[in-house]
């Protein structure tokens, strides 16, 4: 067990029922991600990369194997404990941004902080403003999502993921809905935040053009990692 690892997957398997058929999505995954790494999981559609991120992010349960977050086994935790971990240790960035359309940029970023009783109102405010400033949306904090471009919306999602000060940020195809220039800007932003905040980033993509920007690439094909070791 590595003390530097933020995430360790040991022989993790996951299958889905498709009608009567059991479709294997992940087959015996072993993977270790170190703290502060900026990792891309590359694979074609249906290769299992989203499933892998879902398991790492504790929003789905594996059929077998174990997952360690910060050296703690998490697969057997109850739903509330997993929710707490997601809130305090993991940030999520989604392909389709998943912003609440009736809330402003500021309010969207505030969402994960609202349920954290350890954060005071003043601390919450400073965290939100810092996160918004970090993603370059200081002047747009009162705007609603539909008043923003796709790239700006994804920046809001990044700010939301970072606001609670997580150790790990997971991004599932964060550039899939963006044009090539914006995609590069978003990846650059994530890289910059990775360097600034020492936050571990894991993102999935099938966009080969982004490969040269990341420090580590994990290839996945048919539910099997092709290069799990760093």
């Amino acid at each position: 067990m590595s003390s530097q690892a933020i995430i360790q997957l040991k022989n993790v398997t996951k299958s889905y029922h498709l009608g009567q058929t059991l479709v294997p999505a992940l087959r015996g995954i072993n993977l270790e991600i170190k703290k502060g790494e900026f990792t891309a999981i590359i694979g074609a559609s249906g290769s299992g990369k989203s499933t892998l991120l879902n398991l790492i992010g504790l929003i789905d349960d594996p059929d077998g194997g174990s997952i360690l977050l910060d050296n703690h086994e998490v697969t057997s935790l109850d739903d509330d404990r997993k929710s707490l971990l997601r809130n305090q240790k993991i940030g999520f960035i989604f392909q389709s941004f998943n912003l609440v359309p009736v809330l402003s940029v500021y309010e969207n970023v505030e969402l994960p902080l609202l349920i954290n009783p350890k954060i005071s109102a003043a601390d919450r405010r400073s965290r939100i403003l810092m996160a918004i400033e970090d993603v370059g949306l200081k002047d747009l904090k009162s705007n609603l999502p539909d008043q923003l471009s796709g790239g700006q919306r994804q920046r809001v999602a990044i700010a939301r993921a970072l606001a609670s000060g997580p150790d790990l940020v997971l991004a599932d195809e964060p550039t899939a809905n963006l044009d090539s220039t914006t995609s590069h800007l978003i990846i650059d932003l994530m890289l910059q935040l990775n360097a600034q905040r020492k936050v571990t980033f894991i993102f999935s993509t099938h966009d080969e053009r982004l490969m040269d920007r990341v420090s580590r690439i994990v290839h996945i094909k048919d539910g099997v990692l092709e290069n799990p070791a760093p």
Partner: protein
Amino acid sequence: MFGTWVIAARNLLRNRKRNLATGSAIALGFAAMLALGGYINRVEKYLQVYTIYANKTGHIVVYAPKGLENYTSKPKPYSLSLADQNVLKAVLNTIPNVQLTGGQFFGTGLIGNGCRSVPFIGNGIDPNLEKLLRDHPQLKEWAQNRSKIAKGKPLSDYHESLGGIMVAKGLARILHKPKTYDEIPNGYTSPIITDCLSPDAEKLVAEDANVQIATSSWNGSMSALDAEVISHYDPGVTELANTAILAPLSFMQKLFDTDRITHFSIWLRNPSQLAQNMEEIKSGLAAKGVQLDLYPWNHEGVSPLYTGTMQFLHTLVNFLTSVLAVVVIFSIFNSATMTVIERSAEIGMMRSLGYKKHQISRLFLQEAALLTLLSLFAGGLIGATITLIVNHAEIILFPPGISGGLRLELKPSLETCMISASLIFSLALVATMLAIRSHVKKRIVDLLMGTNR
């Protein structure tokens, strides 16, 4: 700075048409409950005040032991003696909440105009007490038409030696006595009608206010008295419209040849102390070695009109409330179900951010609570408008059993409003909870993808 209530408020603006439809169902349901509750409250108050003051039952009515069941068939042994009355009055003098008291005499017989006799149901009461009851503020507030005399003057305006009686309007018509005592010229002598079938007999009968009252006295002998119709009044219920007379207590006692009374009524200053006062009277009587039967005004045997009517109305209200409750539940359930399905991805996102299942449920419950509160407010305004319109429309209803009509008024009580609002609010939360419960339990990945895998 914002909280989850602000999220709830903003989310209400998302599906305005749907929320407007749901809110309208709640608002109209609440307004209907207010109007219905106002009507029931009006009728109940009317019947309550009618029973206690117009019908002179009192808040508490006292009979001889088993007198309520038996005094009509065996009046003498089941009536109250002077000694009973004196003991009772002594006990009542010790209870400050007692406002008015009085013995009454209930009896039946025949009343005639010289040519025709018909049955009457008579009530004898102290004329001054009768006036106090007729002028009582409660009667003026809730049953104003019962405080007015249709024609003539009250018993208290005449000396008891006159033999003046008040006659129900219908009975006066049957007896061909359109005139009251004061309308008869001084010195007018009633003619002797020798042929009641002659064409002018009816006209001659109508020229004076004299009637003859006959009955079988409590001593078993026939008894008859002359009386003067001093006024016409509306007794308030159809079964008495053609039969009722109101006479001084002394007149009825003289007619029935007794110094006893059939029952004794007690009116309270503060009716909420009724049960306590009844206990005080019972223990006071027991201490003096007297046993009498006490009944509250709403006892089924004492006021069958009130209890029967209210049982019917409460059944009706329960049925209509159930229908409204089902409409509200289904409206909210349907709306909440569609909302959670549409916002599956959002629920999944929030679960990903660390929101627990109960925190998600709470968000939707807050939305439902806000929508319901706004709708209840709107419903309250609609209900108040309906109430104002109806109360100014001067609509006269003729409910079964009530003579002379009853002005349609809606008088929603604060208690009814609060109960209705609480009921709707609770139903809204339960319906929302039922709608979202299974959805919130779904796997986060399924919620994010909007699938049911």
